[in-house]
């Protein structure tokens, strides 16, 4: 039989091997030769710290006592991994996006970067996990004791061994766990060490299993027979425990600080998670494959009363397989040490970031602007935390006496950390979850856990008296720790889990519903819940007060000079500047806060930046301002829209005006040539006839009279043309004198029609309604008459119907008399309608020799008379409407 000393020697060699591997990995990573270090295999194996010594040794013992129930501890995590898409994917994404350093940091960051919440979670984690560390120490010393022989004490003191193991683990963790400050950076040394250890423990357990099945039982068939004839040969699992333990292990898998460390914080690539989603269940399956056979053979071979927890060791030893037993010992040793290292690292990060640093910052007053290198403080805090936590574990081990109470701590610890679950899942899926709600849930769950699970685990009389166990505190039997509300007969673990988690969740939800989150909480909540649609960015800092120098000084203290300068230089370059100091833009401050939070946690980083920048980044006022701003923007855009509509209208009017002007200009040109022609024609004939009269001898009287009358006619035409032009000019210049008098409309119309028809070549049929015309007007009757004559003669000239008809109608309204002159000719073309009232306007085809001034004159007259003249296209022709005020 191998001596304890030899075994200690093996352990030492193994530990030195681990140190070497870790050291090599750190070197390789530092040189940038990560290679296989960053492979999904390493990630998957690092997850195996879930399988602690408690599961390595304990699973067999568990199986020997309760059969298949042990497997629930593996089923929960398997389900979580297979369902990675639902929760883990989101957790990992949030962890990367927010640079989360621990489970406490996650919860604190989600609920408005609240440090109080972080402290509560940290304390709960320390209380829940420290006994678990003690359990690991115990398992290693127990296994050592097995090798020292049945009497066990000649050369070996268990507490002494535990002490030295604790010291060794502390050194390892300090050395490789605090090498760099940024917990978001991978601890390559540690990760590779635990990956190797994961391999060792799997190989060890499988080796023992293979030896048991094929070496002792003689194959699978005989093994199965032996299983069925063994004391655990019948299915005897309590359904409650089956369900509860599966759920519990799933919850613990997500919430255990060490699992969070390897799953989320150490994750470098989301694809690794996808691979691990099936590879890790495979690992768990292999780890539990031979548990039942080993338990059955152990029960069979070992003398009654031997500890089934150590069958993994004692069975090979009893068969004389020293090598196998040593391998098995190393497996257990690996399980214990890897768990302690990672759990301690995770807890130490939480303690230093959320308890030590805030206290230190507040003691040293001005937070960020303290002198000296803060990094040393943080690293010192973290190293101290590591030693304190391992020290706690050792102390707990010594105090509890290493008895059976410790063995039960595994599930108790699970229930403890599972209290984080409501706040965690609520935080990443429900935006309505508030800080107060999370805090209430955690505290309620924690109190019930301590009272119903942790304290009773020490047994009656240890902390809680027997009296309390049997009758409840102060004799209130409803409050008995193992039968809350008087519900008896429940399994203790199930009882504690159901009550604590139910009330925890209840408090969390109800208080969340009742309270109102502050703005930062709401923004963080939105960021967490909507992490996949990454358009929601927290509204950042208003960097009016912070100067780049201050930020630089602070960052150097936390990130180290090189890193900080790199960060600043990269940012400066991104902003297109030279040198080291970028503008403190919002984006940069956000980025900086994330970088800092990777070192000191979200709450502390937030506090430090806010001290420099002055005040929290998001206040209600800020939010109001944002809301106001958007309202203003909305209004402004409305105004712009209105204005642009207005502009469009104006532009349209201008375009119309331009068209009109162009048309007029064309017509004016046409008119000028026309009028010269018009003037010229009579002048020519006057001149010619005058010359004939002058020069030709012997003209007859008749001829002379004829020629003179032609000259006379032409002169009249010229005079009329000139009269019209003069008239228009007078009217336009406003020099006209109106001769206002009373008169009847019918008379004016009568006169106009008579006058017009007296000179007409064609007869126009005029239809009137005399009754309507019997109204008295007070206006310049002569001018009105002129307008009427003009309209009637126009109709005579231009109406091209076979039987030209003009209908004169009078319409009366309160203020206006409208006289409608509607003919049945061809309507004026649309293109000409706009200009018919303009001077010089003539309808092109018209060849009737008018100068195109008539309607312009009418328009001017009507304007002078305070009325108007309009053109309306009629169904059967044209209509001009003359409006007069009454």
């Amino acid at each position, binding site marked *: 039989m191998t001596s304890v000393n030899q075994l200690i020697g093996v352990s030492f060699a193994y530990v030195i091997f681990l140190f070497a591997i870790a050291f090599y990995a750190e070197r390789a990573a530092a040189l940038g030769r990560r290679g296989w270090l960053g492979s999904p295999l390493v990630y998957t194996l690092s997850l195996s710290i879930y399988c602690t010594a408690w599961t390595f040794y304990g699973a067999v013992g568990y199986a020997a006592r309760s*059969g*298949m129930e042990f*497997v629930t501890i593996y*089923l929960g995590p*398997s*389900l*979580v991994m*297979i*369902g990675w*898409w*639902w929760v883990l994917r989101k957790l990992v*994404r949030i962890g*990367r*996006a927010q640079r989360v350093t621990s489970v406490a940091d996650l919860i604190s960051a989600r609920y408005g970067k609240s440090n109080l919440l972080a402290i509560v979670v940290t304390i709960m984690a320390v209380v829940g996990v420290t006994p678990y560390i003690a359990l690991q120490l115990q398992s290693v010393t127990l296994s050592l004791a097995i090798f020292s022989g049945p009497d066990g004490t000649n050369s070996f003191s268990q507490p002494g061994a535990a002490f030295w193991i604790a010291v060794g683990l502390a050194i390892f963790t300090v050395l490789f766990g605090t090498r760099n400050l940024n917990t978001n950076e991978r601890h390559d040394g540690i990760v590779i060490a635990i990956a190797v250890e994961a391999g060792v423990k799997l190989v060890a357990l499988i080796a023992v299993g293979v030896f048991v099945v094929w070496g002792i039982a003689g194959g699978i068939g005989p093994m*199965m*027979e032996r*299983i*069925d004839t*063994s004391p*655990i*040969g*019948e*299915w*005897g*699992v*309590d*359904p409650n425990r*089956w*369900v509860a333990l*599966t759920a519990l292990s799933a919850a613990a898998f997500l919430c255990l600080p060490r699992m969070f460390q390897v799953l989320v914080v150490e994750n470098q690539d*989301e*694809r690794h998670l*996808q*691979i691990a*989603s*099936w*590879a890790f*269940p*495979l690992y768990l*399956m292999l780890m539990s*494959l031979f548990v*039942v056979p080993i338990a059955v053979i152990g029960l069979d071979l070992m003398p009654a009363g031997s500890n089934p927890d150590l069958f993994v060791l004692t069975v090979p030893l009893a068969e004389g397989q020293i090598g196998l037993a040593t391998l098995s010992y190393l497996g257990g040793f690996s399980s214990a040490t890897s768990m302690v290292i990672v759990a301690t690292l995770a807890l130490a990060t939480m303690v230093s970031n959320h308890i030590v640093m805030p206290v230190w910052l507040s003691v040293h007053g001005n937070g960020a602007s303290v002198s000296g290198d803060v990094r040393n403080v943080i690293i010192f805090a973290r190293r101290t935390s590591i030693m304190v936590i391992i020290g706690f574990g050792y102390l707990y081990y010594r105090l509890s006496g290493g008895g059976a109470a410790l063995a039960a701590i595994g599930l108790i610890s699970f229930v403890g950390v599972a209290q984080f679950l409501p706040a965690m899942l609520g935080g990443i899926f429900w935006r309505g979850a508030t800080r107060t709600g999370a805090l209430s849930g955690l505290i309620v769950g924690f109190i019930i856990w301590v009272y119903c699970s942790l304290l009773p685990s020490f047994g009656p009389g240890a902390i809680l008296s027997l009296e309390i166990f049997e009758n409840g505190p102060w004799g209130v039997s409803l409050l008995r720790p193992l039968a809350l509300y008087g519900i008896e007969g429940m399994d203790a673990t199930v009882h504690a889990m159901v009550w604590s988690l139910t009330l925890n969740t209840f408090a969390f939800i109800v208080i969340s519903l009742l309270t109102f989150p502050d703005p930062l909480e709401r923004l963080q909540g939105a960021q967490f819940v909507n992490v*996949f649609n*990454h*358009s*929601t*960015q927290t509204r950042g800092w208003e960097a009016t007060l912070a100067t780049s120098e201050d930020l630089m000084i602070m960052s150097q203290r936390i990130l180290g000079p090189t890193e900080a300068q790199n960060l600043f230089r990269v940012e400066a370059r991104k902003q297109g500047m030279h040198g080291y100091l970028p503008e403190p833009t919002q*984006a940069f401050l*956000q*980025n900086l806060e*994330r970088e800092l939070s990777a070192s000191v946690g979200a709450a502390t980083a937030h506090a430090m930046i806010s001290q420099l920048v002055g005040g929290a980044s998001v206040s209600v006022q800020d939010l109001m301002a944002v809301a106001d701003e958007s309202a203003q923007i909305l209004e402004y855009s409305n105004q712009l829209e209105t204005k642009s509509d207005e502009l469009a209208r104006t532009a349209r009017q201008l375009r119309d005006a331009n068209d009109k002007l162009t048309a007029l200009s064309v017509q004016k040109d046409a008119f000028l040539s026309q009028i010269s022609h018009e003037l010229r024609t009579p002048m020519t004939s006057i001149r010619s006839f005058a010359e004939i009269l002058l020069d030709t001898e012997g003209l007859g009287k008749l001829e002379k009279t004829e020629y003179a009358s032609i000259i006379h006619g032409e002169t009249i035409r010229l005079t009329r043309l000139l009269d019209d032009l003069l008239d228009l000019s007078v009217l336009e210049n406003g020099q006209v004198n109106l001769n206002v008098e009373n008169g009847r409309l019918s008379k004016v119309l009568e006169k106009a029609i008579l006058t017009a028809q007296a000179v007409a070549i064609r007869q126009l049929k005029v239809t009137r309604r005399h009754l309507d015309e019997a109204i008295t007007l007070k206006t310049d009757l002569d001018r009105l008459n002129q307008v009427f004559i003009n309209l009637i003669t126009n109709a005579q000239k231009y109406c091209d119907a076979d039987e030209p008809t003009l209908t004169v109608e009078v319409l009366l309204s309160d203020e206006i008399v409208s006289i409608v002159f509607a003919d049945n000719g061809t309507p004026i073309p649309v293109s000409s309608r706009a200009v018919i009232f303009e001077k010089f306007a003539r309808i092109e085809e018209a060849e009737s020799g008018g100068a195109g001034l008539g309607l312009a004159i009418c328009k001017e007259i009507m304007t002078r008379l305070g009325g108007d003249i309009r053109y309306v296209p009629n169904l059967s022709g044209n209509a001009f409407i003359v409006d007069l005020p009454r």
Partner: protein
Amino acid sequence: MSMPSTPSKFLEQSGYRQRRMMDALRLLPVLGLLLWLFPIFWPTGLNVSNNNDPVSTSSAVIYVFLVWGILILLSSILRWCLRHTLEQETTTDLDDMDVGKTGQ
């Protein structure tokens, strides 16, 4: 269950297949949960009043490990078939995040 290698004119169909495989991936834990909850209905050795013989531990072991194996197999196959879809999602999102841009 073959993965169309090129996104040719059957893009529609392959997209559909991918989506359904995504569904399967999401539902896998539910299947696992149901299958592993099933043992609570087994007759146990604890209540002897039951006429049925309790399930033997060897069958229980075989059942639990069989379910495990099936889940692992399905999970790995689905993940393999969906690797392009998942990859795309991961990389595009992460690029965006690491630089700390304000999203697209």
